[in-house]
Every structure is written in structure tokens, then in C-alpha cells.
């Protein structure tokens, strides 16, 4: 028999999960990825919240609808010459003297976009107790490939890209009559598939191997704090720790510990 047993039902385990999500805080990453035919550079910050727990013996926690709260700053370059016809001022002659033929080359424009939204994640997580350095942990780690759903976020990002294109190009001389058609053309080239692909590439590293720590205590566990010169801190050593999902009349996450003085 272990020295200490702690059990949490589905409701309490959900609370422990939410605390673990808060403990993770906000994670950031940056890189580049395909946005349709374009290459986008991005920086992303992601945090997790919510989700409902289903305990599955012997060691699986199924978590549904974890919120992936993400904020993106991304940019990509557009060579307008790929989308707009060349534009030349014709040669004009006055009394034997002629102006040169001038062709306008469209610039390459960088489109900056800021976007925030929430996706949801559903997956099975494996429960593991382990000694990590001086601390005992109970981790729940995602298994395999999680299901991430972006929902309306992809369409919203596409709209944001359209607005950003318009804002970035409106200052270019002579582009006025072409602008609306140009934005539509670029959005069509990117498409929902392009947006989904980019979001997938950005979010995947955050959820791959995603681990929530629902128990974290030092191996040298403090029972009582120092409370004076004659009352030093009292510690016990957690010599072993186990974690599993047990099923009886209701399923529970059970953490068991052995201790030594």
C-alpha cells in the first residue's frame, strides 16, 4: 500500500487541467511558411484554456475542445508585376524632339497582418508520473496527431489579408482602378486552403507533443516550513510516485506516493 493516495474525479481533474494550462502560460514561435503561392514570415503566440475531461482507464485522459488562443503577426511579399499588366507612357514628339518611352514597373509590396483567434483541440493524452531532476511530475501528454479545428478563423484570416492588401497598396500611383480586382485575385490565389495550410504549419509545433503538468512537487517535499530557530523546516522524501486512471463506480485520476523520513 502506498503511503499517500490522492484521487480526483472528472470534475476535479478538469480543474487540475485548467490550472496546468494556466501554468504553461503563453508560448511564442516564429518562422516562415507557405501562404498559397507566397512565403509568409510569422511570429505567433499561443496559450491554452478550457476543455472538458473524460477519464479512460488505465492511463488516458481524453480532452475535448481545448481552446488554442493564438495571435499572429505575419507578412508576405507580393510582386505586383505578377498580377498587374505592364504600364508604359507612350513616346511623345514635339518639333523633332521626342520623350523616351517610359514603362512603369510595379513594386514588390510587403503586406503586414495582425490576427488573433481561437482554434480548438481534441485529443487523447497519456498520464505519466516521472522524476524530472529534483521534482516529481505527473504529465498528461498528447498522443499521436491531434485534431485542431480552426472554424471560422480561416475565413476571418482571409478577410484580414484582403483588408491588409488594400491598405498596403492604396498609396501606389495609378493602381486605383485596379485595386479591387487585384485584392480579389490575390485572395483567390491564396484561398481557404492556403490559409488553413499556413495556420496548420504555425499551430502544429505548439500542439505536437503538447504536455500539461497536473502535479509538480519537489522530491524533498516540505511538510512544515521553518518557523524559528528551534523549528527548522520538516521535509519528507517522495521516494516513488505513480499515476493512473482507475474505474469503479466512477472514473478517477489516482496519484499514489511513497515517502521516507
Amino acid at each position, binding site marked *: *500500500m*502506498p*503511503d*499517500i*493516495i*490522492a*484521487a*480526483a*474525479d472528472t*470534475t*476535479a481533474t478538469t*480543474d*487540475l487541467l485548467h490550472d496546468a494550462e494556466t501554468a504553461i502560460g503563453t508560448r511564442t514561435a516564429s518562422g516562415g511558411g507557405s501562404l498559397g503561392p507566397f512565403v509568409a514570415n510569422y511570429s505567433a503566440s499561443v496559450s491554452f484554456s478550457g476543455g472538458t475531461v473524460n477519464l479512460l482507464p488505465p492511463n488516458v485522459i481524453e480532452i475535448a475542445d481545448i481552446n488554442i488562443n493564438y495571435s499572429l503577426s505575419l507578412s508576405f511579399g507580393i510582386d505586383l508585376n505578377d498580377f498587374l499588366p505592364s504600364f508604359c507612357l507612350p513616346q511623345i514628339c514635339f518639333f523633332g524632339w521626342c520623350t523616351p518611352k517610359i514603362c512603369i514597373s510595379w513594386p514588390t509590396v510587403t503586406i503586414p497582418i495582425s490576427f488573433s483567434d481561437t482554434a480548438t483541440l481534441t485529443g487523447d493524452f497519456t498520464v505519466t508520473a516521472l522524476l524530472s531532476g529534483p521534482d516529481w511530475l505527473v504529465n498528461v501528454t498528447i498522443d499521436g496527431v491531434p485534431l485542431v479545428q480552426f472554424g471560422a478563423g480561416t475565413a476571418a484570416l482571409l478577410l484580414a489579408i484582403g483588408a491588409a492588401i488594400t491598405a498596403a497598396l492604396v498609396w501606389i500611383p495609378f493602381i486605383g482602378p485596379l485595386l479591387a480586382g487585384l485584392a480579389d485575385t490575390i485572395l483567390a490565389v491564396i484561398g481557404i486552403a492556403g490559409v488553413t495550410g499556413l495556420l496548420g504549419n504555425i499551430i502544429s509545433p505548439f500542439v505536437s507533443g503538447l504536455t500539461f503538468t497536473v*502535479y509538480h*512537487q519537489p522530491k524533498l*517535499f516540505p*511538510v*512544515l516550513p521553518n518557523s524559528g*530557530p*528551534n*523549528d*527548522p*523546516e*520538516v*521535509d*519528507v522524501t*517522495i521516494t516513488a*510516485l505513480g499515476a493512473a486512471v*482507475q474505474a*469503479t*463506480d*466512477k472514473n*478517477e485520476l*489516482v*496519484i499514489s*506516493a511513497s*515517502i*521516507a*523520513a
Partner: protein
Amino acid sequence: MSLTQTHHVFAGVAESGINTFLKALFTARPHYLNYGSPLFVPASTVNATNIAAIPFPGVPGGIQYAVSFSIPVVDLFPPNAGTLSPIPPGNNQLGLHTTVTLVLGCMTWSGRVTGAEGHGQTRPIVCKLDVWALGEIVPHYFGPGTGFITFQVDDVRIPAIKPDCLQNIIDCLIRMMLNGALSNVQLPFNALSAGAFKLILEQGPQIDNDMVEVWGSI
């Protein structure tokens, strides 16, 4: 039957765990087990607690004495098979076994001696007694996540003492002393779950299945 029953969380500390906590506590703070008047313990330290001598008219400096207990060993209900306790624990009770060492500063003096120090000779007389006790767990709850459990000694038996009237006196004396010593044992709720969660106490502590058990939510 689930561990959490109708609650959301459960924490249980087995008899072995309680005894580990006691060993850790009394090893770190042995002054909770060792007491002596100035002749034996001139000043309180981490190892021993200074107490006053027993005043008695005509005894110079009062009666010097010391009391120390070995680290108590707890037996949670149901009692261990083959227990030698004359008062084994019943339902929701704990048994406790320790050794008390009583030391009397046996003083001899001549004539009228004044002053706290006295001018006689003192010879320590030592007596070790096997102590069996019966008690219960008492919770102190201050709100979500905060509180502790402590021990209360309800009865003591020292089989070696005869006649009965002397046994009653010594039993009561030791019960009071042991209660005082154990009042310093305060195991926080956080330790009962090895830090797994901050307990909102809803039921317990209860002693059963050789465990101290509590239920609640977080």
C-alpha cells in the same frame, strides 16, 4: 466504490505515511519530545525544551525533573494483528505506542537552604515506561486549501505501574504530557495529498482501513 465517493477529491495517508511524517517531524524538532527543568535543560534548543522546576515549599530551587518520549508509533484502526496494546484502537480511533523516560532530580540537602540554586546534592533517578495510548485525529480548517490535522490523546495505559491508584495518577500525568507534546504535531492538508491539490474539506478526517482519510473539492 470510488475513492472520492460523492465528493470530487480524496486524500488518504496510510499508517506508514503518518508514522513517516511523525519520524520526520520529531527528528527535525526533537524538542517537542524532550523536556527538562533547568538542571537538565538549562535553555530551550532544537533538541530539548526548558520547563520550570516544580515549586515545593522548602525544596531549594524546586523539584528538578525531565520527561522525554521516544518517537511515537501510530496504529490506525483496525488495530495491527498481534498488537500488545491493552487499549487497541476502535472505529475512527488511533493507537499510539511510545516510551516515556522520567528523570527525577533527587536532591539531598542539610539544614535550611535558601535561594533558587540550593546547596544540596542532586542524583538523577531514571525510569523508562512503555506507554500505550488511544486517540483521535482533530481537524483544524481555516478555509480552502488551508488547515491541518493534529492528534488528541484520550486515554493512556502504562501496564507496568502498580498499584492501580498510582497507575491512574501516572496514566493521567503521562496523558497530559503526551497531549501537550502531540499538540505540536500539525500535518497540513497539503501534505495529506502530497501536494496534489488544495483541499476544500467536506468530510473527515476519518480513520479507517489503516488510513487517515479526507474528502472534499478543489
